[in-house]
């Protein structure tokens, strides 16, 4: 399989990995958000949602492992690209004119990605840990766990900021993936860009609305 | 007196090349790899020659002073390339292309060479299409053509306004393929500074590495020069900044004859000069004359804006003087007519410029059609001048553009020095006293793809030249001479910069050896050029060192050669007591002001032998016309 690792390590191969894993994560986020929005329906609905996931635990575990692998691929590959790309220009320009030729979103994928990674660590060590590892009383409500966390001000604000940054990342990532797959068509390219921006806004607003809702609700 | 043998094959015109190809000697395929060939220059002629010779199996070393072969000035040709395909069914044929070219050259080119050029023109188009050159096409998918000056048929193939670029990239791609295969060794950023001649044969070259400054020697069984023209002798020309005559000139000083140096082409459609610090002139493709109308005011000293000059006060002088060719009259005629209008004080607002107006074409065809045809040219015009040519007429004026003269070659494209071949604009062979539009690309590729691969084999197989070591005495001697020459330039440390002297030379050339010449002016020019040469060698300032990247030194060496060439151009113009094509002597004109040839005394090529600095011997190669009748060129 020498050809495979060679292909995946080529510049286009690495782009391809970023795009493929990125698109997978984009799809995951849709499911994730859809589930989270049950919080707005109420405690019962959310608890039911989480419990129903609990019933298919082995399956969820497999999904989680796959997701983790995708994340790791996306992150490791991204870090590798970042350093290689920096190395491609050892002497920097004294005047940076990139504002004039590209968007902020596209130039800051490594930075927004890093922040999202930090967020991910926090997210896993709080919610995921609370839902999956911590022992709860038999009548504990998942809904209340969320409520408690989001009524901590700094935590909620951090969440909101991170979700905005996630939106930045997705805004570029979505259409970028299509470009990488070679789907840049006169007729559909602008539509894809719009869908990407729409998607990014929905994700950012959707995820951020939850902490805002609980924070304001708790006040 | 040296007898110049053009080696034109016998037989009827249309069969000469075919017979010649059969009669010449071939190098057996297995033996080709035993021959080393040096190609200097990687424009259309050089790149196509190097690629084709590599394909055949020769060991080729190709040299360019550019950072990449793709930069050669062929790339800037805009309009197109002629071929006698007759795809338009408008009566074209090989014979008509031949005839138009001979007539366009004012009957000062060799019949046999020109016929061969017309004959292989069709192969060029086939070859380029096969390489993936994206020529313009019709909706049906077949190739499109347009018409060009000096022809009444549509035979010009084009790729928007970037035909030269696309053809060069085609040749460059073929060259790359041979470089990848190891059949061509490519040397970038190495400028040929001398030719090495051993026992009367070209044996190799001396180069200066433009990055390290190192002087190096290379030997081969044959040397091909495809080093372009010398229009930069005028300082301001449409040539690229680095175009120069050095390779050809140094070969000339080593014994190669320089033919018809006075035949220079002044292109009619260039942007006018804007100021003292201008570095070069920009050409607007002649194809614009297909739809643009050239005019000036009928009144002297008219300072009105073009829009304020009513139709009946405009003089569409080309349409008036040459009704059948009109705005598509040949270049020399169009240029001279512009000069006449300006000399008559009818230039645009007192400037050295005339109008090229698209108003009628836009009204007739619509802005979109004009945009499709000339969009990039219009954009280019606006970028440079800040004026929108869709709204106000373009201002144009003639500028030095192409040089028909060059090193003398025989039918095989070999100079009088055995083993030295010269292709493309660097030779003198196919355009006579004036070149028609879209013929330079044709000649460059004809020479490189379809002529030299045959004729060089003949030389190698029949002369069996030997290869000398690149470190043998004659090479070392040549290299040392160049080192001395360079040291000399750097040691003067005078007051005048290289560009300053070049500009002065350019002014002398433009005023006295330009569009119109006379004996008195030419004599004065020779004197002035000699003085400039004196000034250069006593008081020029060249900064920096020899062993480094030194652009000032590069230019100094080139200007030193221009100063000598300029003198020879004036001398050649003075000796040619007639007007023909791009060479217009004011003393020799018809009462209507048209060029007046002297066929009795000047139906010959003037080939100059270098004797010593400032002294040449003029040799003649008589031109015989067996197929066309010498007529007064008329485009009325």
């Amino acid at each position, binding site marked *: 399989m*020498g*050809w495979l690792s060679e292909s995946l390590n080529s*510049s*286009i191969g690495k*782009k*391809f990995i970023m795009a493929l894993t990125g698109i997978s994560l984009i799809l995951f986020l849709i499911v994730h958000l859809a589930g989270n929005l049950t919080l707005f329906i109420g405690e019962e609905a959310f608890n039911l949602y989480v419990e129903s996931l609990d019933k298919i635990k082995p399956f969820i575990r497999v999904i989680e492992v796959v997701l983790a692998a995708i994340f790791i691929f996306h992150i490791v590959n991204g870090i590798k690209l970042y350093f290689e*790309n920096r*190395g*491609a*220009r*050892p002497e920097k320009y*004294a005047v940076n*004119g990139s504002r*004039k030729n*590209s*968007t902020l979103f596209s*130039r800051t994928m490594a930075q927004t990605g890093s922040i999202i990674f930090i967020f991910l660590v926090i997210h896993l060590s709080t919610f995921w840990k609370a839902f999956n590892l911590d022992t709860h009383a038999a009548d504990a409500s998942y809904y209340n766990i969320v409520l408690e966390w989001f009524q901590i001000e700094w935590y909620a604000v951090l969440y909101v900021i991170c979700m905005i940054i996630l939106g930045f990342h997705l805004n570029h990532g979505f259409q970028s993936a299509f*470009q*990488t*797959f070679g*789907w*840049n068509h006169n007729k559909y390219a602008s539509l894809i860009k719009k869908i990407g921006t729409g998607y990014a806004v929905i994700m950012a607003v959707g995820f951020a609305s939850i902490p805002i809702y609980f924070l304001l609700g708790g006040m | 007196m040296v007898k110049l043998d053009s080696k034109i094959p016998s037989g009827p015109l249309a069969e000469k090349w075919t017979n010649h190809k059969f009669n010449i000697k071939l190098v057996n395929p297995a033996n080709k790899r035993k021959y080393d060939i040096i190609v200097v220059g990687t424009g259309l002629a050089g790149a196509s020659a190097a690629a084709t010779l590599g*394909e055949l199996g020769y060991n080729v070393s190709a040299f360019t002073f550019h*950072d*990449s072969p*793709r*930069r*050669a000035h062929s*790339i*800037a040709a805009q309009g197109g390339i002629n071929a006698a395909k007759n*795809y338009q069914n408008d009566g074209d044929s090989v014979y008509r292309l031949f005839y138009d070219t001979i007539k366009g050259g004012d009957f000062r080119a060799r019949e046999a060479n020109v016929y061969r050029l017309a004959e292989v023109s069709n192969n060029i188009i086939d*070859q380029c299409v*096969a*390489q*993936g*050159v*994206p020529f313009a*096409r019709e909706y*049906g*998918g*077949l*190739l499109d053509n347009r018409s060009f000056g000096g022809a009444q048929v549509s035979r010009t193939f084009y790729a928007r306004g*970037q035909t030269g670029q696309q053809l060069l990239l085609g040749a460059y791609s*073929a060259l*790359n393929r041979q470089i*990848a295969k190891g059949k061509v060794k490519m040397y970038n950023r190495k400028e040929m500074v001398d030719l090495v001649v051993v026992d009367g044969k070209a044996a190799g070259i001396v180069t200066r590495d433009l990055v390290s400054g190192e002087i190096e020697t290379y030997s081969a069984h044959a040397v091909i020069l495809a080093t372009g023209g010398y229009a930069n002798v005028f300082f301001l020309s449409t040539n*690229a900044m680095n175009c120069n005559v050095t390779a050809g000139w140094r070969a000339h000083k080593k014994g190669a004859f320089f033919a018809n140096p006075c035949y220079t082409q002044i292109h009619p459609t260039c942007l006018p000069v804007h100021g003292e*610090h201008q*570095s070069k002139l920009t050409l607007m493709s002649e194809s614009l004359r297909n739809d643009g109308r050239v005019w000036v005011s009928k009144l002297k000293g008219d300072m009105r804006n073009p829009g304020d000059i009513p139709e009946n006060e405009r003089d569409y002088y080309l349409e008036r003087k040459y009704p059948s060719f009109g705005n598509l009259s040949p270049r020399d005629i169009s240029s001279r007519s512009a000069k006449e209008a300006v000399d008559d004080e009818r230039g645009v607002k007192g400037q050295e410029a005339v109008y090229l107006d698209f108003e009628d074409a836009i009204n007739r065809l619509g802005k979109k059609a004009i945009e499709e045809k000339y969009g990039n040219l219009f954009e*280019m015009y606006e*970028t440079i001048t800040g004026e929108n040519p869709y709204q106000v007429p373009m201002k144009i004026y003639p500028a030095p553009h192409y040089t028909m003269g060059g090193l003398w070659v025989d039918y095989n494209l070999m100079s009088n020095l055995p083993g030295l071949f010269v292709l493309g604009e660097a030779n003198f062979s196919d355009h006579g006293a004036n070149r028609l539009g879209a013929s330079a690309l044709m000649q460059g590729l004809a020479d490189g793809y379809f002529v030299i*691969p045959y004729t060089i084999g003949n030389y190698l197989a029949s002369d069996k030249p030997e290869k000398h070591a690149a470190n043998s005495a004659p090479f070392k001697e040549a290299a040392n001479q160049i080192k001395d020459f360079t040291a000399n330039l750097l040691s003067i*440390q005078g007051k005048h*910069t290289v*560009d*300053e002297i070049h500009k002065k030379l350019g002014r002398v050339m433009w005023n006295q050896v330009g569009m119109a010449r006379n004996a008195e002016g030419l004599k004065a020019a020779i004197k002035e050029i000699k003085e400039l040469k004196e000034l250069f060698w006593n008081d020029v*300032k060249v*900064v*920096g060192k020899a062993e480094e990247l030194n652009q*000032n030194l590069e230019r100094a060496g080139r200007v030193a050669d221009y100063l000598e060439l300029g003198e020879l151009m004036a001398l050649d113009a003075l000796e040619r007591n007639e007007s023909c094509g791009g060479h217009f002597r004011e003393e020799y004109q018809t009462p209507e002001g048209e060029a007046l040839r002297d066929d009795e005394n000047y139906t010959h090529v003037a080939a100059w032998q270098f004797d010593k600095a400032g002294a040449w011997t003029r040799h003649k190669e008589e031109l015989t016309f067996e197929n066309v009748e010498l007529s007064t060129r008329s485009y009325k």
Partner: protein
Amino acid sequence: MAEKMINLKLKVWRQNGPKAVGAFEDHDVSVSADSSFLEMLDELNDSLERNGKDPVVFESDCREGICGTCGLVINGQPHGPIPKIATCQLHMRHFTEGQTIWIEPFRAKAFPVLKDLAVDRSAFDTIMHAGGYVSVNTGGVPDANAIAIPKDVAAEAFDAAACIGCGACVAACKNASAMLFVSAKVSQFAVLPQGQPERYTRVQKMVKVMDELGFGSCTNTYACEAECPKGISVKNIARMNKDYIKAKVKTEKIELEA
């Protein structure tokens, strides 16, 4: 005609060789608004030469925006602030009185500085050697009209082929990626029928060499397209990506021939 003059402060990058340490040098110039940017540098050099100083090394040739020789980064933008032109086509009328102009070379690991503002772009040639051609020998080709090529296909090929190889895409890209340049050549042949036989080997070979030369990867910022003097589209990059992936996934050949 009275020329409009403007006064400018130049900060010009000077570097004596590939390994030397470079720095900016200050020059005050007064220049005609009708002059081109390179003519301004010509004038600067003329005055430097008169004072016995080394002129600023910069490259240019055709000065019509087609040869691709020139290329400076002007106030952070390759070929300066005006879109779709090369440095040689930039005129001083686009600058304002008293403005400071930073002039830098194209910077990339794959484009080492030779001296001052001149860089070595031979890496582009090396990529072209790998496959930037249709493998046909001279002679023995079919008649030019033997294959009909739809007008829009020819136009698409031309749009890609219009690349002048200046390297502004690399200079503009934050990753110094050469994808736009390489994809332009790959695309020209990928859309034309003449290029089909080698379509999938060509893309693999050219990308492989591109990667070996130290260019960065593309992260789809499209700065290259924005700064390209010929407006080469990033659609070409998409096409190259697709062809490359397709080649790697579908072709049976495991090893690329040299």
